[in-house]
């Protein structure tokens, strides 16, 4: 029965291009131009899904992105499985494989359907009232069961091999929705020369025009008019037409997020084409022309497969050449159901009856239906349906309940009125008003630069819709500063059957009447919520979950509101609407992440020497955006072995370290010394040119922000170094004070981190290693003592040489232009072989400095420590009247004796290395009392024992006292000591 429900001719499908596809392992044929839904319907398949809560059989309700029922998983191979896709928006391609979801073991036989039998127990909010005893059953029994029953499709199990693109765009007029209103708006705007973008979520532009077969616009058939309008727009250089592009979010100041699907409709997409593209559009003006969405009628059994929206059935017929069934019944509350009936009749498949809620229907429609041989049942409604996996019979009754009769059918096509799509309007902070014709909310006051047109603005009828689009296009252009065409342009419409969207409110339903199909929320659930005191629509939404499914309540919101308002005894307007939130339709994570995936999540900063380190087999660690070589293992070495070797090499011979990531800021100007004096704790004015000083920077709260050596290059020029991660923060802070507090100072700040690579050479053989290559600098200790600075050349490269040490050994930091760094590094490395040179990484650097008690900001401080806390009180220029943070150091809490203070810890068993983060507690007779924590702990090969630094409450007054150090279940005894473990007299610096 392949394509048994396809009419012999008509529709916009390409009958010359049959496409094979699979649904639940069954093979089917559709045509190019089909959606998965239209192709399934053509093959007589209505039952395609199970609902979320009751696992009820569900069919295809709609023909668009509002679909609540027909969600499927589309499988393009193991790594390209996508769950929860509406079959109504999935464009068919050859070889498409789809499967239904949320059932076990199969769609037809689903154990979860037992929930449906239990529905009297599983009413709205039931889970808040039970599953509480026994207590531990929630985590072990109840919740796992609930979770397994919930959820729709399955998440993919492999990394997504596809990639996604992002594009920023700017335009004067962004038109969202490519139906008649949007196209008319675009035509109006195109002629003005404004930059126009027209986007539509469907595979074809045209919206409702695609479902029109008998109407003529300006003497052309609707389809031909559409083709020619699109041709005009596509030919215009100032117009961009983008299809398969769903505007999902309206953000600040006319900034719109749009998700465009690029390959999901292709059988064999190219590997270098992104799967989706996220458009981020900033528009001067936006025209919202998203049309309206048909509402279901609310009656018992309205969710059975075969029950479909009438407008959707009309689309399937006219656009896809597909009949929803062979014997349909129309149930409607407004004229639009009649249009479907008449189109079906013309296609030779007239419905047996039209059941209209209204006692009075336009005589023209009644006459036409009579001509088509359709029974008209007015003042009546459907009260229940039957049929296991497809509607078979329905019962209708007059509105007063009398006159019940049964009708046989294989499809029930319903219309409960139309809901203008105001989601984006509302996200744009546009206000809404209740419309008595639509019985829905329509746009009211416009936010700046935003216009609504067409059915989305509460306009109905093709001529009026086209005109409203044209006017909006004209107004938008004017607002964007373009000479606009006249606001009116008559569109001549022929062959349109006059129909009104006017509908009465639906009467209270009986039976299990579904409002939110996907989340299985019934009218009764809404009434129950109100009965239980949930009076705000937001509460009702949350208690019943109505409108919270993947369709975001597109078909259900107004029906839920009407039911709630009726129960509360207020008007729908009084009850109000829940807030619309982005996205309008779901947007793929990958598209949001864009290029920030798979190795390009964040940039990696690498030093010039990094490739060399990689060649040497270095192990790296991420430090802020940088990656740094942590250690350089030789064959068979683990980190500890490598660090032992590297550290001994530095202490006994010479070591070389890539310190290029150090932040460097050049502070220049006549007031440079004054500036630093105000900013850093230290006294700078006394620092002579060519001399260095260790600087400490606080926040105004008195806590350490950063540290680093500062060299005074000349009278008016300082070279400030910062921590690796701190450079941007420090520069920002400097700029802030300079620009906003002390604009009188003549100082200029330049980041030079990238200009200078830094090679740190430390160890007794350091001078010997570098000397042969250096010109123009006297390296003698008299000319270049510790903490001195000089400029010269090294192997033909410019050199800024700092005699500084972060290891306690004789040390030099060679700053060379970054482009020369690799050459100099390799030169020194080659020469070093004879001097016992080791190359060391950050881990050894950390150990060597800890042996000397030098702190690392962020490791030995935590953002709540003052200079005094960590033993840097000596650096503070107390005679200075002021510096940033000084006042805070006199706050009451800063003066307390029990402040955390940095001390050393020597373990009783010298072989035991403490854990960083381990807790220090007192062991005194008063019992264990928390004192602080270990900040740094290492095995010191040089000392033949472990060393540790710790922040301990009042620690400096407790030298020699024993403490316990606790980590996990291990408790270690240790003694509080000073922080300088190695060479306390500081003699090595000149060794």
């Amino acid at each position: 029965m392949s394509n048994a429900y396809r009419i012999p001719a008509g529709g916009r499908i390409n009958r010359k291009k049959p496409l094979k596809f699979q649904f639940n392992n069954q093979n089917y044929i559709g045509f190019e131009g089909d959606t998965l839904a239209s192709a399934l319907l053509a093959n007589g398949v209505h039952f395609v899904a199970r609902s979320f809560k009751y696992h009820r059989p569900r069919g295809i309700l709609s023909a668009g992105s509002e679909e609540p029922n027909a969600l499927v998983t589309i499988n393009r191979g193991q790594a390209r499985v996508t769950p929860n896709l509406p079959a109504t928006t999935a464009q068919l391609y050859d070889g498409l494989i789809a499967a239904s979801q949320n059932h076990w073991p199969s769609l037809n036989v689903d154990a979860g359907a037992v929930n449906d039998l239990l529905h009297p127990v599983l009413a709205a909010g039931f889970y808040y009232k039970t599953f509480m005893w026994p207590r531990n059953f929630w985590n072990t029994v109840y919740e796992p069961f609930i979770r397994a029953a919930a959820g729709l499709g399955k998440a993919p199990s492999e990394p997504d091999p596809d990639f996604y693109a992002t594009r920023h765009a700017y335009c004067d007029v962004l038109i969202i929705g490519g139906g008649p209103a949007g196209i008319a708006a675009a035509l109006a705007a195109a002629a003005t020369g404004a930059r126009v973008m027209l986007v539509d979520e469907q595979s074809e532009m045209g919206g409702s025009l695609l479902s029109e077969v008998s109407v003529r616009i300006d003497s052309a058939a609707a389809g031909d008019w559409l083709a020619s309008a699109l041709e005009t727009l596509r030919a215009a250089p100032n117009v961009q037409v983008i299809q398969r592009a769903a505007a999902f979010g309206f953000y600040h100041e006319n900034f719109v997020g749009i998700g465009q699907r690029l390959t999901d409709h292709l059988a064999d997409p190219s590997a270098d084409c992104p799967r989706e593209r996220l458009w981020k559009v900033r528009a001067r003006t936006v025209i919202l022309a998203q049309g309206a969405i048909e509402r279901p009628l609310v009656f018992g059994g309205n969710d059975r497969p075969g029950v479909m929206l009438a407008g959707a059935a009309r689309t399937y017929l006219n656009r896809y050449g597909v009949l929803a069934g062979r014997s349909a019944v129309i149930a409607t509350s407004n004229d639009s159901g009649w249009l479907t009936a008449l189109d079906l009749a013309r296609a030779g498949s007239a419905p047996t009856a039209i059941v209209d809620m209204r006692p009075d229907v336009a005589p023209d429609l009644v006459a036409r239906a009579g001509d088509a041989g359709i029974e008209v049942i007015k003042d009546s409604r459907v009260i229940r349906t039957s049929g296991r996996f497809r509607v078979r019979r329905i019962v209708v009754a007059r509105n007063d309940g009398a006159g019940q009769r049964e009708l046989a059918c294989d499809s029930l096509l319903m219309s409960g009125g139309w809901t203008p799509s105001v989601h984006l309007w509302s996200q744009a902070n546009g206000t809404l008003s209740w419309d008595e014709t639509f019985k829905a909310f329509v746009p009211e006051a416009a936010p700046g630069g935003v216009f609504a047109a067409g059915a989305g603005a509460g306009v109905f009828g093709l001529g009026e819709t086209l005109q409203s689009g044209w006017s909006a296009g004209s107004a938008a252009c004017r607002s964007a500063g373009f000479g606009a065409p006249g606001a009116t342009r008559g569109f001549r419409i022929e062959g349109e059957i006059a129909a009104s969207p006017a509908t009465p409110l639906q009467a209270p339903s009986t039976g299990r009447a579904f409002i939110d199909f996907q989340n299985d929320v019934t009218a009764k659930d809404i009434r129950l919520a109100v009965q239980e005191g949930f009076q705000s629509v937001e509460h009702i939404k949350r208690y019943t979950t109505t409108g919270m499914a993947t369709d975001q309540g597109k078909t259900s919101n107004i029906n839920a509101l009407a039911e709630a308002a009726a129960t509360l005894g207020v008007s729908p307007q009084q009850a109000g609407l829940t807030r619309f939130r982005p996205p309008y339709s779901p947007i793929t994570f990958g598209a949001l992440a864009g290029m920030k995936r798979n190795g390009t999540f964040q940039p990696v900063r690498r030093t010039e020497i990094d490739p060399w380190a990689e060649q040497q087999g270095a192990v790296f660690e991420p430090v802020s955006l940088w990656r740094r070589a942590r250690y350089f293992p030789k064959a068979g070495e683990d980190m500890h072995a490598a660090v032992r070797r590297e550290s001994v090499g530095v202490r006994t011979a010479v070591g070389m370290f890539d310190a290029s990531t150090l932040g460097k800021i050049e502070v220049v100007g006549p007031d440079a010394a004054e500036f630093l004096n105000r900013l850093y704790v230290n006294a700078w004015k006394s620092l002579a040119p060519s001399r260095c000083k260790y600087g400490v920077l606080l926040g105004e709260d008195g806590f350490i922000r950063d540290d680093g050596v500062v060299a005074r290059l000349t009278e008016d020029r300082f070279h400030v170094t910062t921590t690796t991660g701190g450079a941007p923060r420090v520069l920002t802070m400097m700029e802030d004070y300079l620009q906003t507090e002390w604009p009188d100072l003549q100082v200029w700040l330049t980041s030079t981190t990238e200009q200078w690579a830094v090679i740190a050479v430390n160890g007794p053989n350091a001078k010997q290693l570098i000397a042969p290559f250096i010109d123009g600098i006297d390296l003698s200790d008299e000319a270049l003592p510790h903490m001195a600075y000089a400029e010269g050349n090294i192997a033909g490269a410019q050199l800024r040489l700092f005699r500084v040490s972060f290891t306690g050994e004789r040390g030099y930091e060679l700053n060379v232009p970054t482009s020369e760094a690799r050459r100099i590094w390799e030169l020194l490395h080659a020469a070093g072989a004879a001097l016992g040179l080791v190359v060391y990484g950050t881990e050894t650097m950390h150990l060597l400095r800890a042996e000397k008690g030098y702190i690392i900001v962020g490791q030995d401080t935590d953002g709540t420590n003052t200079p005094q806390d960590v033993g840097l009180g000596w650096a503070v220029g107390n005679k200075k009247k002021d510096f940033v943070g000084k006042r805070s150091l006199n706050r009451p809490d800063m003066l307390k004796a029990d402040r955390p203070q940095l001390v050393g810890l020597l373990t009783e068993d010298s072989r035991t290395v403490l854990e960083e983060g381990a807790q220090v507690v007192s062991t005194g007779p008063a019992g264990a009392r928390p004192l602080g924590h270990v900040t740094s702990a290492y095995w010191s090969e040089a000392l033949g024992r472990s060393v540790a630094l710790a922040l301990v409450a009042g620690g400096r007054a407790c030298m020699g006292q024993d403490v316990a150090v606790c980590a996990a279940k291990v408790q270690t005894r240790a003694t509080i000591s000073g922080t300088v473990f190695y060479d306390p007299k500081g003699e090595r610096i000149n060794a």
Partner: protein
Amino acid sequence: MRFSFLSLMRNAMAGQSLWTPQWPQVEPKPFYDAIIVGAGGHGLGAAYYLAKEHGITNVAVLDKGWLGGGNTGRNTTIIRSNYLYDESAGLYDHALKLWESLSQELNYNVMFSQRGVLMLAHTVHDIQVFKRHVYANQRLGIDNEWLTPAEAQAYCPPLNISADARYPVLGAALQRRGGVARHDAVAWGYARAAAERGVDIIQNCAAVSIRRDADGRVAGVDTERGFIGAKKVAVSVAGNTSPLMESAGVRLPLESYPLQALVSEPVKPVMPCVVMSNTVHGYISQSDKGELVIGSGTDQYISYSQRGALHIVEETVAAICELFPTFSRMRMLRNWGGIVDVTPDRSPIVGKTPVPGLYVNCGWGTGGFKATPGSAHVFAHTIARDEPHGLNAPFHLDRFRTGRLIDEAAAAAVAH
């Protein structure tokens, strides 16, 4: 009617007709012993504990909109107590202990799901910081343990632990007692239980200002619906605290920022726990409905718009895809914003104010939901006794003068 399986069955047979309103609609009385402004979890909870533990039942809870409509109903519901400082850990663990029996306490299933909270370490610095947390927590008897990357993946199979990742997972701190709960149920459960004990819950009644008498003492609250007198007024309005407290002449160290969250479409169980990453900037769990619930940091500027920017969502989702590359084909279903009030040290202010009879509970920033029962409990104590409970004593306003900050963020986030 007491909630139970039995009452469900009785109603199932009675066509749900026996259920009554979970809290009555009441008109404000002219005077209360205490008014709590803000019917979020913290405010409703405080009213409940005032009634239950302190016998103060002449209490009103006012809200400008619908109860539970602020951050209580907008957060990602993560619950944990593995904070660094003893003061914080003490307060949050008090809350966690109350969470463990909250459903029974309130006779309302708040669906507290102890799925475990996994906090990922991606750098050596992270390891140091998290181990400090782990050992500090263990010292207090609060569960928190260190996992290797392989152990972390065993606990959370979709987690990417590849060493090639931009920020490879180097380990994780796991608090097994942590988890998530059903946020709305917390507000509703407290509201119902408080109402049962005589508390008036008055929705759609915005507090305009706080009135003080000639002596400077609190006199009541001017609302949209007129003046309501009270002996004591307690403010628990999160992002809207500054304007209201200003009306009583109290200026606070607070700034309100937009915080966004989002959920995916529902899928079958795939995330067994909560995963948080400070370095990659994202957190994620899966709700009982099957939605992946995702959040990250605040937008950069202060705002009362309850509306965030798209680029924050992009960054958040990118972070999640970095941690879980298999989620890239999932789709965002819903995205929303709340207003969080942030203090300079990212810790709350819970206690008395310079105005006699006026109390404030604010500054929870991005982390208030998890503290709900604990905060409400100690806040009620503070209101009833006019002195702080031992657990909220350190969270006094005066710390900003003395410098005795409880700076969880600084302790965790300083890079080197």
